[in-house]
C-alpha cells in the first residue's frame, strides 16, 4: 500500500473538501441550497484554516 506525506495545508484542504460535500448534501432540501451550503462550508473551513494559521504565527512572534 502506498504511503503519502501530505502537508498541513494539503491535508486540511482535502478534509475541508470531502466534509463540505457531505455536509452540503445531507443538510439542505434543494440542489441549489445544497450547492450553496457546501460552498459556504468549504469557504468557512478555508477562512478558519488561514485565520488560525495566522493567529498561531502572530502568537509565536
Amino acid at each position: 500500500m502506498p504511503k503519502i506525506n501530505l502537508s498541513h495545508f494539503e491535508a486540511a484542504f482535502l478534509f475541508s473538501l470531502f466534509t463540505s460535500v457531505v455536509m452540503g448534501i445531507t443538510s439542505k432540501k434543494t440542489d441549489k441550497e445544497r450547492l450553496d451550503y457546501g460552498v459556504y462550508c468549504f469557504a468557512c473551513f478555508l477562512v478558519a484554516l488561514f485565520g488560525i494559521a495566522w493567529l498561531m504565527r502572530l502568537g509565536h512572534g
Partner: protein
Amino acid sequence: MAAHSQTAAHVTKPATPLNVWLPPVILGWVIPGGGHFLLKRTGRGALIFASVFLMFLFGLFMRGMMFTPQGGGDVLTSLINYGGFIADIAAGAFYLIAAMFGYSQPDLPGDVHDYGTKFLVTAGLLNILAIVDAYEIAAGKKD
C-alpha cells in the same frame, strides 16, 4: 389551545414502518451512499460514496490508526477509544475490508499519522450523516 392540538397532532402521526427505512439505513452503513442509491438518489449517493471512500483511502495512505474498543487508565481515554472505534466501524465495508486484510497501525507520533487517524474517523462520521439523511428520505421527512 392551538398548542395543545398541535401537540396532539404530532403524537398521533403514525411511525414509518421498519421495512421502509431499515434497508436504506443498513445498506447506507455497509456501502456509504448505498442508501441513497436504493432510494434512487444516485447523484447524491455517488458524491457521498466518493467523499467517504477518498477520505478513508487518504487516511489509510497516511497510515492513520484504527481505534480498538479498550478501556484506558481514565474515563477520557476510554471515551476516546470507544468513540473512535464506533466512528471507525461507521465507515462500513471500508473498515471491514481494511480489518480483514490485517490493517493495523500503531499510534505513532507525527502529524501525518495524526491526520490519517482523523481522516479515518471522519470518514465514518460523514457516513453517519449520510445514513441519517437516507433515513429521513425513506421516512418522507425530506426529498
